[in-house]
Structures are given as C-alpha cells and as structure tokens.
C-alpha cells in the first residue's frame, strides 16, 4: 500500500490557500512526514486539515533556543488514512503569537492552553483564555518549559489555593452546582468535577485537571535515553509499557537504531498483557459502580492472577522498566514463556464463564445500556481515541491502520460497535481482550530467537523521532529530540486521555448524577497521563 498518496493533494490545497510550505521531510520524523510553515499561516493550516478530513492528533511546543532571536517551536500532528503528518512553525520568543486551532478542532483546546501555560505561546481567537495546566503556583510571567526556567522552579512558600478558577456558571430555577474532588473517596487520582444539575439531571459537567502535574516534560531534559524510558514508564502507571515503548520507539527512530525482532515480539506481548490487565480491572470496576460487586471480585481475581503472570515474566507486576531503548531489559525465563500458553487458555475459559453470568443479568444490562451515550459525530469532532472511539463507530487502531513492528506482519482485528453507551464500551473491551489473546498466541508461536537488545546508535545534535504506539487507552504519541551527546533536549508524550477527557463532559450530559461514576469509569481517562 502506498502511504502518503494523499499528501500531494493536501499540499495542493495549501497552495490554493496561499499557505507557503517551507520545507518538507519524509525522513526526520519517519514514518511521519514533517512540513514547516510560516506562523502567519498557522490558523489556515487547521482549516485545510479540517476540510481535508484529517484527524487532529497532538500539539506541543519546544524551545528552539537561538542567541540573537530566540524562538519557540510549535508542532501539530494530523492523521489521515493511517499516515501522520507533523506541521511545524517557529515564532520569536519575544512575540510568540499564533492563531488557535480550536475553532476548527475542538480537541486542540486543552493542548493549546497547556502550550500557552508552559511556553507562553499566545493562541489568538482561542475560545477559552483560562489557565489549564499551570495552576496558581506559578506567576503570570513564568513559563516553566522555556530553557531559561530552572528545572527546580521557583517554589513559592505556599501554593495559593486555586479557588478563583472561573467555572462556567449556570442560572435558572432549580439549578444547583455539585463540586466533586479534587480529592475523592477511594484510591483514585485527583481531579475536580463541577456539575450543574437540575434535580438529578446533569446539565453540564466541567473538568478541572492538572492536580498531578509532575513536570515530566521539564525533568526529561538532560536525561540519558535509559533514564527517559524509565520516566516515560511513569507518566501513567497503568500504561507503563505503552508509554515506555512510545518513548523508546522515538529514541530508536531518532538514532536509526534497528531493534531486534525478539525484543519487538516481547514488547508486543507486554503491551497486550497490559491491555488485558486494564480491561479486566475496568470491566469489574464498571460493574461495581452499578452495585454489582460479584463481577468486581471475579475480575479483580483474574487481574491479580494476570499480574502475577507479569511478575513471573519480567519480575514486575506492571511490567515496568522492561522496555528499554534498543530492546528489552531481560530475556524472560523460558519456563514463564512456556507457562503462558496455558495461562491464556485458562483466562479464556474463566472469562467465558463470567461473560455468561454478566449477559444473563438484566439488572446489569439495564444500568449499562443507554447510559452515557457518545455519538459518532461527537466522537469524531473531539478526536476521541481507543475503546471510547471504537464503541462509537470509529475504527481507528494504530495496530491496524498504521501498524508498527511486530504488528505489521499480521492482521489486527478491530472490534467496533455503534451504540456508544457504557455497555458498548464494555463490549468493545471484551472483544479487545479476545483479540489480544489471539495476538499473544501468534506472538508466542512465532517468537524469534536471538538478541534482545541493540545499543542505541550515537546521536547527532538535533535529531528527533516520533513514537506512535497503541496503548490500551488508544494512540500514544511521543516526540523526542536529542543533544549531540545523546541526552534528551525535548520530550513530549501525548496520552490518549488528552482527547478522551473532553468526551466525558459530553457523555454525561442529560444523564443522571448517580450515573456519573459509571460513565467516568467506562472512559477511564488517566489524570496523570494528561497532567504530565
């Protein structure tokens, strides 16, 4: 299949709009294409991309340095037909002003505010001027991701309370507000939800995230590739394999390091194990949120067994730090690999038994069916990813549409449902477990022998790479740029939660307040992954 057969037409459309594409490169961020444009044309790029039918993928800034005229870089990634296109522009640090993409792509809203908060790039015509990631701890002129800002920051004596954030207000008879969080009952991450409700019906939900901002992007700078992989594995603890893989893929592509086949297969095994572990845990948790505790305990038990399998495989229950630049850290014990086939059969048999019980329970179906609907149009408009998108009729899965090794050697089935409700999201995840089990069987059968790790090739100053991995939540994008000594100059990782959190705001509208937890769990965005 010829990739990028659409790019010439896309460029022609840019030409029609009098957008000057400065440079293009198919190699810099391969397999993605990179083009550069003038800052004046930035807004129209979005218009062309939207009219062309591109999906908005990610936006991130970078400090380009420069002695005389220091500049900031801004890049946006689009996807069309499984191909990724990165558009880059540079703005002077003194006057970093760009047109916003939010009017064309709703998904660009929060990433642009993130870039504005941390780099000081001003997005004109942005519909929402409020801060996003930068809570009250930073002053107005502080832009932490600029190179002249110390990594240690300027810690204030006491972080001022974030109480003046102007939430959307609703007026009218009987309208009341419910503030929930950021600290919740139960062991979950912090995030604030502001509901406007009439009686038990939710009129509007507004999310306020950023409470677990850890400065991942800043503390990545200056790290060695190995240290970056460790850091990436901690962006979101439940997605440690996929994030580490995405970061390593970016590093390997930047340095043009070939990864041994055995390592790729083992990485894929780990990624599928991670997917299954999370799906198992979440299906149980969704049932528990509607008071069906039986399923919760059964699925927790299966997940626990599964995590113990992880422990046997690589010495860590969550498979943390197994994926390293150039391959994987340790070859698994042959007995652990041999035991896995039986483990897969056992899980499949147990799941069949449990599914029969779940499907035979009308009270459960009554709660899940029709709850929290996300229409295909809204899902497309918001650029939703992963099982949230696939339950609403969007069939995007990197493993199928833009397969990376080892998925390029086989066909990955993508289960898609149309209903878009909580039940559909549960069903899609059930199907994904089945597909993952089948994939794992193939990987186990075809696992090549040989090396498990190839040292990274030496870096050239400024080389960069783009990692794209289908994590269990959906597409993960990681961008890495290296110094000449091989340390990290810039690292950005876009967790799929960036695009799925806004979907939750739409999903719960006109649902009842007590159904919010189950809607939230059915989306299960990562707070840590989006706060960075």
């Amino acid at each position, binding site marked *: 299949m010829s990739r990028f057969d659409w790019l010439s037409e896309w460029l022609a459309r840019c030409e029609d709009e009098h957008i000057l594409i400065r440079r293009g490169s198919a190699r810099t961020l391969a397999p993605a294409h990179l083009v550069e444009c003038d800052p004046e044309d930035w807004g129209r790029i979005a218009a062309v991309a939207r009219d062309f039918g591109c999906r908005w993928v990610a936006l991130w800034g970078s400090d380009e340095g420069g002695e005389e005229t220091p500049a900031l870089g801004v890049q946006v990634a689009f996807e069309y037909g499984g191909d990724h296109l990165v558009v880059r522009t540079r703005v002077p640090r003194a006057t970093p002003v760009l047109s916003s993409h939010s009017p064309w792509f709703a998904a660009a809203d929060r990433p642009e505010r993130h870039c504005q908060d941390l780099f000081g790039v001003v997005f004109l015509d942005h519909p929402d001027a409020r801060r996003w990631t930068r809570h009250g701890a930073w002053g107005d002129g502080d832009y932490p991701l600029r190179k002249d800002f110390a990594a240690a920051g300027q810690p204030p004596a006491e972080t001022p309370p974030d109480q003046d954030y102007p939430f959307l207000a609703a007026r009218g008879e009987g309208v*009341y*507000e*419910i*503030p*929930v969080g950021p600290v919740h*009952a*139960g062991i979950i991450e912090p995030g604030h939800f502001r509901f406007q409700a009439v009686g*038990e019906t939710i009129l509007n939900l507004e999310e306020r995230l950023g409470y677990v901002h850890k400065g991942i992007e800043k503390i990545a700078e200056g790290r060695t590739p190995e240290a970056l992989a460790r850091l990436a594995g901690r962006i979101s603890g439940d997605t440690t394999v996929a994030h580490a893989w995405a970061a390593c893929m970016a590093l390997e592509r930047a340095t043009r390091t070939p990864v041994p086949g055995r390592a790729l297969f083992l990485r894929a095994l780990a990624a599928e194990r991670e997917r299954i572990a999370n799906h198992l845990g979440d299906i149980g948790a969704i*049932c528990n*949120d*509607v*008071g*069906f*505790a*039986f399923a919760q*305990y*059964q699925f927790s*038990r299966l997940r626990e067994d599964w995590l113990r399998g992880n422990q046997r495989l690589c010495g860590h229950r969550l498979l943390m730090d197994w994926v390293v630049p150039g391959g994987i850290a340790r070859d698994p014990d042959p007995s652990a690999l041999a035991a896995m086939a039986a483990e897969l059969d056992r899980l499949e048999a147990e799941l069949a038994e449990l599914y029969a019980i779940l499907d035979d*329970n009308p*009270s*459960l179906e*009554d*709660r899940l069916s029709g709850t929290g609907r996300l229409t295909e149009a809204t899902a497309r408009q918001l650029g939703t990813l992963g099982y949230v998108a696939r339950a609403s009729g969007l069939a995007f899965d990197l493993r199928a549409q833009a397969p990376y090794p080892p998925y390029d050697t086989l066909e990955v089935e993508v289960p898609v449902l149309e209903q878009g409700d909580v039940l559909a999201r549960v069903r899609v995840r059930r199907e994904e477990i089945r597909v993952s089990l089948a994939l794992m069987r193939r990987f186990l059968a075809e696992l090549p022998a040989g090396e498990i790790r190839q040292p990274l090739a030496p870096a050239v100053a400024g080389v960069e790479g783009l990692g794209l991995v289908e994590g269990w939540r959906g597409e993960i994008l990681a961008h890495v740029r290296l110094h000449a000594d091989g340390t990290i100059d810039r690292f950005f990782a876009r967790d799929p939660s960036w695009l799925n959190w806004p979907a939750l705001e739409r999903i719960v509208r006109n649902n*009842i*307040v*007590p*159904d*919010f*937890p189950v809607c939230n769990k059915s989306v299960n965005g990562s707070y840590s992954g989006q706060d960075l």
Partner: protein
Amino acid sequence: MMRDWLLALAQALIFIALAPLLAGWVKWVKCHLQNRVAPPLWQPYRDLRKLMAKEVVIAEQASPIFRAVPYIVFSSTLMVAAVIPSAMINLPTSRVGDVIVLVGLLALGRFFLALAGMDIGTAFGGMGSSREVTVASLAEPAMLMAIFTLTMTAGSTNLSAAIDHILASGFVLRPSFAFALSGLVLVAIAETGRIPVDNPATHLELTMIHEAMILEYSGRHLGLIEWAAQIKLMIYGVLLANIFFPWGIATRHSAGWLLVGSLVIGLKLVLLGLCLPVAETVMAKMRLFRVPQYLSLAFLLSLLGMLSHIILEAG
C-alpha cells in the same frame, strides 16, 4: 407487673445488642457468596467500639441540630426496637405505641437525619437528603398500606395484638398477606438502604443515598448512626418475620420463655439474613429514577393486599 417490665427491658436490650450481629451475619454471607474471605461475625462490634473511641470532628458551620441528630436518630430507633414484639408478645411496652406510631418514630429519625445532611451545606449532604426524602415519601405510604392489611385482619393497629390474633387463628393462607408481604419486603429493602435501591458498601458519593447524608459524621456520632442503621435493619427483619411467620414467639412471660423466643427470632433472622445477600449479589443497583417505579410497585402490592382482604376475606 414489675417482672413484665423487666422482661420488656431485657427484650429491648437483647434487640439492640444483637443488631450489629445481624449486620455482621449479612456481611458474612455476602462475602461468601462473592468468593471473598469474610470478616468475623463480630466485626461490626469492633467497628462500633473503634468509632465510639474516636474523636468527633465537626465542621465549623455546624448548627446544634447537627450535634443533636445522632442522639435523636438513635433514641427514636431505640424506641421502635423497644416497642415491637421480637421475642415475646403482650409485654407492657407493646401498649406504648401502635404501628402508626412506629412508622412515625422511624420517620422522625429520618426527618432529623435529612436535616443534618443539609446542615453543613456540602453538596453531597443535600443531595443525599433530597434522595432520602424522595424515597421515604413513597416508601412510607406503601408500608402503612401493607401494615393496615394486617391490622384489618386482626382488628387492631397494635402489633402485639395483631400477632396474637394471627397465632390464635392458626395457619391460614391469606392472599392478602402474600401481597402485603411482597410489598413490605420491597419497602424494607428501600428503607434499610440495601441493593437495588441504595448500596451501603459504595465509596462513590454521587451514587449514595443514606451514606451521603452522614458523610460529615465521625467518631461516636457516626457510631450511633451506624448502630441505629443496624437496629433499623433488624427492626424490618423482625417485622417481616413476626407479622407473617409469628409461630415460635413467646406468649407466656418468664425469663425462660424470653430465651426461647429470642432463639426463635434469632433463627428466623438468620434465615432472612441468608435471603438478603443472595438478592444483593445477583442484582445490580437500579437507576435512581427507577426507584419511584419500584416503590409504586410496593404500594400497588400493598394496595392489592388490602383489596383482596376486603373482597375475599372480610365479612
């Protein structure tokens, strides 16, 4: 006479002392049904002791109502526990109040609990109060209707007298009782905050009813409210057991008979405590807006009970 009062006192004390055990039993069965390791049966006692020993934390905005409510709720529940015949009938306390008074006492406790939920001004408390009152306004008529069916058969609104009448008339299959029993079971589930109406085990504030009202309580206040909830569960259990299956309740007054009566009601509650967790395990919680339909069904069943009494049994 003095002996009867002592027996009544003993019956009430046994009642409130054993209420946590029933809660522990229900939990024990539920854990086993869900393939979990169950806490010991006496875990609720440990929890109560822990809560009683803990410091009370009260919001700055709390009014005196907030402090008084745990005592009001506990004492009103205690009153009901003292009046209903659990192990023995025709005790002097049973003349203190009839069924309508009992329903009123429970409503009094709920009224103050709902006030306390709104007192602090948190969103969850107000939400819980609003839901609790919604549920109560539909549950109480259904409950009264079910109990009236019974009292019309017995010709008295006094529980003790009604049970006496049922015992005296022997085992008769009455369609009205079958309806009333079904109605009362549905009401009892709603009133004690069990699945599918409310989930006592949840940590999700947005889905709570009873728990949302008492989120701000701590220490001995919380302990009293929890204990009152356990007593309330037992009250409904005793009502169901003794109204519809009164056989075995002690009719003669002596310490020995009190023991026998207590053992019998204990056995009935053990059996009831088996049914409740089974239902809770096989069912998910229903949507909140289904609760009115559910309680309408309870009311309808109770009404059918009364109609079938009038049409088939009266006269």
